[in-house]
């Protein structure tokens, strides 16, 4: 096994093409050692391909992969200190659970394999199933075995390929917290590939949002969410309302810039405005909008077209005079709800909006239906 010690994983101009089709555009990425990193994007965006290149299961068309100072691009999968938790778990059906978990250690001639495997099974709370076979376990248990099998080898990087996709909702939520906790405890670099933006935001320290083979934006969940730099990210993470607006001349006040949208003057923070933009999409998240005037100086009037009660919150669709429908989400904190057909004011603060260059497609990243892996 290549002895790389601990080090950041860096991808340098990494590309993958199949004939004329480019799955991954030149990708430059550095992932800090010991962090929980997510590759997020819709199916076909290249995230799984990137993961497989890091694992060594696919060879890049060009570019380099390094862990610390060591270039591992030319090393084969079985020589890399990188382990994968597969989406379908890929547990060896003809071996017991314990043999599965010991597999990697045995290949390296580790004499203490059994004890280490047993300890790792305890870590994932499956101490009792060592003698069973994969087909005898439930999906959730198989997933934890797959994790243990990869963990026990103490890889420099642990790759997770949409490992929670096959689990039902409650179990998935539980495993998200478990995985995060295990990562913090063992201190390994985890790279998690998923199309579920909620999952990525819950678990990861930093997220790389990918779209059609290229990197859209890189950052921690909060930054990506509050300050998306493209319509794709704005729509893919959560929901966004995007209003067409023109930047108004004038000095503005206190770090606030005035824009005009559909005849109404609105305010947005200067730091949330891309430099040199004249035509923008003014974006605001549904939960930042308030019904009534209490939300802030930005005000628009519309008519409630839909009211959906979702337990924690109520979602309103409010139709603007120019036909656009805004989504407003309000927590059910006991205040009165608006009714269907009611004329309402929607308001928000200047700091709660973000602006994106208007040349982008407002629907990018939006119409993604629920995709199962």
């Amino acid at each position: 096994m290549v002895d790389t010690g601990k080090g950041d994983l860096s991808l340098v101009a990494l590309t993958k093409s199949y004939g004329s089709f480019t799955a991954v555009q030149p990708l430059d990425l550095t992932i800090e050692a010991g962090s929980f990193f997510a590759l997020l994007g819709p199916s076909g965006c290249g995230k799984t391909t990137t993961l497989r290149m890091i694992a060594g299961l696919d060879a890049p068309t060009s570019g380099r992969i390094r862990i610390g100072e060591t270039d591992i691009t030319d090393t084969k999968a079985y020589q890399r200190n990188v382990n994968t938790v597969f989406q379908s778990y890929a547990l060896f059906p003809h071996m017991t659970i314990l043999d599965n978990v010991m597999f990697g250690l045995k290949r390296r001639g580790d004499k203490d394999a059994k004890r280490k495997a047993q300890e790792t099974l305890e870590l994932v709370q499956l101490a009792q199933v060592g003698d069973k076979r994969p087909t005898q376990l439930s999906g959730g248990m198989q997933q934890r075995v797959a994790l243990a099998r990869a963990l026990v080898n103490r890889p420099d990087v642990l790759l997770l390929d949409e490992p929670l996709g096959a689990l039902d909702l409650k179990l998935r939520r539980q495993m998200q917290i478990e995985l995060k906790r295990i990562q913090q405890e063992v201190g390994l670099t985890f790279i998690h590939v998923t199309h579920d933006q909620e999952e990525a935001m819950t678990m990861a320290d930093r997220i790389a949002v990918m779209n059609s083979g290229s990197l859209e934006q890189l950052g921690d969940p909060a930054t990506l969410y509050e300050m998306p730099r493209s319509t794709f990210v704005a729509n893919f993470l959560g929901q966004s309302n995007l209003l067409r607006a023109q930047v108004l001349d004038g000095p503005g006040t206190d770090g606030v810039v005035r824009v005009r949208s559909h005849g109404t003057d609105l305010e947005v923070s200067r730091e949330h405005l891309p430099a040199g933009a004249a035509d923008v999409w003014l974006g605001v998240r549904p939960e930042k909008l308030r019904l009534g005037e209490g939300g802030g100086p930005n005000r628009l009037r519309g008519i409630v077209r839909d009211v959906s009660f979702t337990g924690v919150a109520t979602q309103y669709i409010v139709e603007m005079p120019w036909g656009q429908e805004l989504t407003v989400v309000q927590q059910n904190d006991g205040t009165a709800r608006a009714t269907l057909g009611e004329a309402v004011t929607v308001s928000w603060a200047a700091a709660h909006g973000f602006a994106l260059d208007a040349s982008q497609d407002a629907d990018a990243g939006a119409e993604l239906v629920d995709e199962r892996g």
Partner: protein
Amino acid sequence: MGWIRRHLVAFAALAVLVYMLVPNIVVAVFSFNEPKGKFNYNFNEFSTAAWTNPCGTQGICESLGLSLRIGVIASITAAVLGSMIAFALGRYRFRGRSATNLLIFMPMATPEVVMGSSLLTLFLALGVPSGEGAILIAHIMFCVSFVVVAVKARVATLDPKLEEAAADLGANPTQTFLRVTLPLAAPGIAAGALLAFSLSFDDYIITNFNASPSSITFPMFVWGATARGVPVQVYVIGTVMFLLALLFVVTGQVVGKRRNRQVA
């Protein structure tokens, strides 16, 4: 009457099944017969003489031994050759795939008379003598295709992700093959080998074309006996074969079920 109509298919199926099994039952029953004359076609009186003396007839056990020997060698060789082909077909891309498929398929679609007689002409032309060696060569030839089909079916069910997982965990290609691929393909290879063995053991036509007086296999012995008078021992062996086959298949099923039992 309506009950019969609704279960028409089941009745028909049962009738056909009976049709298929009656000969086996007859064979079993007649193995306990002590025939009046040379021919064992009418039940005379009950006797276990043939069971207690299975090698009683001249030549029967020698022929059995020869058939077993050839069967084992042929099935193992065919299993190796056929499995290699099946792996190539199932796991790799290469040119000439359709030609390969055709070549594999043809022996299964050729009448045995043609295969046996054509091999004879080849051996005649090359001066290869008939006998055990020629029979062995012939058996391997027609068994390979069946092994390929059996193993290919099994290889197709192998999840390629398992081999990727093995590599991911540090197994080089040889280790991956020995520890993951081969064990998982083993049931298919075993099935292919068993199939090859039974085809070889039971073959008469092709064997007959390539045999010599010193190499009498069991089917050839039986054939020769049909004119002279089939000894009861033949029926005994027939019954034993049937029971063994049943045992094999049932065991395979039970073992398979046991492996896959789910935990609550």
